[in-house]
């Protein structure tokens, strides 16, 4: 569906975004309280945050729709926003793909795509609308009106329209959230393909950690108005900065443990301690993170793991998620286990849980 050969023409040469100490408040309500972030040239960075965390506001400041109260935005080495001046959105050269696509309803698909390209330039470059539409897999639909397209098609037109101005940066504001689940993953991978093979710098905002981790080169988690953690998806998943971040980035079992040198003693048995470069090291009482896929369930009770009772089994096809109520006096929180394929353990069955791999640990809070 995506034709990489046509793409290199659409990326411009000067790219890269740097945001420094950005502040923004609406009235008395502070939304951004010092966001700093840099997006490497040609990468796709996802900003992940719960709704109301200020991620859309950040995007709108970068696009130039809102002024920042403090801080700078630098695009391709040029400052586009600081305390003294702000470049208007039309002079920034930033492509913007809003949540609902926001296609111009009174213009055809082709006219939508070429809206940002001046007539003179259009002639010089040839009919770029057709080429862009082909690129996003919508060849031949240029004569249609937005309302004649499906939601996924509208989203792709919105992307083609943003790319038509050869932007230094593309901003995507929850571009897949209005699509239904089946369509979402296919549109998502198409968009990812277009951006990646074009070498286009892109910043994507989402509240869906699955989406952020699967699509982006870099993920920045925003919470309480600042970037809580920033890094490659796997890094973030394996080395969250604190327990709350661990839980936000995916299903997490946080259990009481003891750290002794390079070993962690968990209810599931002793595990190797994973070095966490972003948190301070600890020893003694700790909270350990064991992801559901690290856990193994067994119905033979050997006594080496944590015993519990199965309370719920969710079958997802590719894997099964089992919730177990632990027979423990220390931790009462249910344990989540993810196992590949179908695992037939009836509810109420007594089981024993052991763990594989290594565990991350943070010092236990006093009290």
């Amino acid at each position, binding site marked *: 569906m995506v034709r990489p050969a046509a793409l290199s023409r659409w990326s411009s040469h000067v790219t890269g975004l740097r945001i420094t100490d950005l502040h923004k408040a609406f009235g008395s309500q502070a939304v951004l309280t010092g966001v700093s972030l840099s997006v490497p040239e040609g990468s796709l960075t996802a900003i992940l945050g719960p709704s109301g965390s200020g991620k859309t506001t950040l995007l709108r400041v970068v696009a130039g729709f809102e002024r920042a109260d403090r801080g700078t935005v630098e695009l391709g080495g040029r400052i586009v926003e600081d305390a003294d001046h702000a470049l208007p959105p039309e002079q920034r050269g930033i492509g913007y793909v809003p949540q609902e696509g926001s296609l111009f*309803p009174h213009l055809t698909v082709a006219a939508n795509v070429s*809206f940002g390209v001046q007539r003179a330039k259009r002639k010089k470059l040839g009919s770029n609308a057709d080429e862009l539409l082909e690129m996003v897999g919508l060849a031949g639909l240029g004569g249609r009106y937005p309302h004649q397209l499906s939601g996924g098609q509208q989203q792709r037109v919105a992307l083609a329209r943003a790319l038509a*101005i050869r932007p230094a940066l593309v901003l995507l504001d929850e571009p897949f959230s209005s699509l239904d689940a089946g369509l979402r993953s296919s549109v998502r991978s198409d968009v990812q393909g277009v951006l990646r093979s074009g070498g286009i710098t892109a910043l994507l905002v989402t509240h869906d950690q699955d989406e952020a981790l699967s699509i982006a080169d870099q993920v920045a988690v925003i919470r309480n108005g600042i970037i809580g953690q920033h890094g490659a998806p796997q890094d973030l998943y394996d080395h969250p900065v604190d327990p709350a971040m661990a839980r936000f980035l995916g299903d997490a079992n946080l259990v009481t443990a003891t750290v002794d040198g390079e070993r962690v003693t968990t209810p599931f048995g002793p595990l190797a301690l994973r070095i966490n470069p972003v948190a301070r090291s600890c020893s003694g009482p700790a909270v350990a993170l064991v992801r559901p896929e690290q856990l193994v369930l067994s119905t033979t009770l050997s006594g080496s793991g944590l015993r519990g009772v199965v309370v719920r089994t969710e079958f997802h096809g590719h894997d099964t998620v089992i919730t177990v109520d632990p027979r423990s006096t220390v931790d009462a929180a249910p344990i989540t286990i993810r196992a590949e394929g179908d695992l037939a353990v009836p509810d109420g069955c007594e089981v024993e849980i052991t763990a594989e791999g290594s565990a991350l640990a943070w010092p236990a809070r006093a009290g």
Partner: protein
Amino acid sequence: MSLAATTEADLLGPIDVAAPPRTRRPLVLWLLAILVAALLALPLVYVVVQAAQTGWSEIVQLVFRRFTLTLLWNTIRLSAVVTAACAVIGTAAAWLVEQTDLPGRRFWAVAVVLPVAIPDFVIGFGWVSVVPAVHGFFGAVLVMTLALYPLIYLPVAASFRGSDPGQEEVARSLGLSRLETFRRVTLAQARPALLGGCVLVSLALLAEYGAFEILRYQTLTTEIFFESQRSYNIPVASSLSLILVVVSFAVLGGEALARGKGRVTRTTRAIRARNVHRLGRATAAALAGLTALVVLALGVPIGVIIYWLVRGGSTTLPASTSLVGAALTTAGYAAAAGGLATLLALPVVLLTVRHPRRSTATLERGTFVIQAVPGLIIALALVFFSIRAVQPLYLSPPLLIVGYSIMFFPLALVAVRTSVAQAPLALEDVARSLGRRRVVVWWRIVLPLVGPGLAAAFCLVFLSTVTELTLTLVMVPTGVQTLATQFWAYTSGLSYAAAAPYAGIMIAIAVLPSYILGRWFDRLPSRAGRLT
């Protein structure tokens, strides 16, 4: 009477609050909107000033005269009976056209609405000039019901069209009978529209002058007109004005109370076919009823106009030059009023739609209150202020046009609001990020999307102005004739044949905008659906 198919319920409907807040303070918009609000407040200021000048004790004395109470009773009992009759007829017609397998529903959908384009006083003239027995209370009930039921039909039919057919099915599956389902689900969904329509009917009745004068039925408005224009008894006129305004506001407030806190929404977005109830053996009765309605409301006035045109012959018909002159004057005033009212509505709408806050919503509600102020009071207020403050404007065309614009401001507000909602700010943001300057964005994105709605606002005010009589009679510049004033002059002299061509042209001019509007309102829901 006006084509106010959309009521306050629609006007104050949900606006997009999900959009992130914006920091830029719209100072210029605020300033303009406040100026508009101040202009619209003039009539109420006038009523208060007049009452203060008259003095409280004198007002109390005048209000509790037997005559005043008779006028009040006349006004209220007529309003109650006509509103009830219109509610029944309008709802029944809407249900037949929108929810049943009635043969020829497309024809009926047009025919049933058309009386809205005929001024009330022309319908009154149509009846009186052939059936002199039509007068007094029952004459007024007959004529006003025929003239005003479309104000109920339009919103209720629109609400039936937009209702979720699934809800009726669910009600039946929960064990409700057909009749119970109609009462508790179908009608309940149409309730805000019905209430809004009833308010429009009541306010139109309170403000009506021409038809009641023809029918020789005395109400507060006819008496205010007489006292202020004929016998120049200002204390009486102002105390009656005070009562009239209080009653009108009571109607508006009563609707707010009756509407309550419940919200009528459909939870599903899925577009489903409309409900089609089978009429079966009742088809003949339904057809007979609608035919009778259309013959009485549309056939009689139009037939009478044609009858007088034919019977009058060339001797009694007015010179064609005076006809053309009056038509051109009327069209000119109406076009100016349409343009001005649309312009006045713009800042208020831009402020409320694009900066949704409690303060802006309050301002908008405030301006909407003008719909409860009868045209006669607006006219008296403008004449009053022009004599005291801006003498050169007294009885001048600009002042008349301002009068029309104030009177029909709510119509423009509703239409402009719908159209501005068609061009969300997100589109402008995107367009600017694509490298286009603000001016280009306005020209290529905002105007094409908002334009049709602005045209609709213009048409609504235009056609209402063409058929307006009361305010025109008070404010028309000396020596100037409009279609309505000429018609009025001839009917007052019982020269029915001479009056007929003016009525004919008035209706002809009003029908075209009505048709355009009908098409626009018809397309609106589907278009909005496509955009989301």
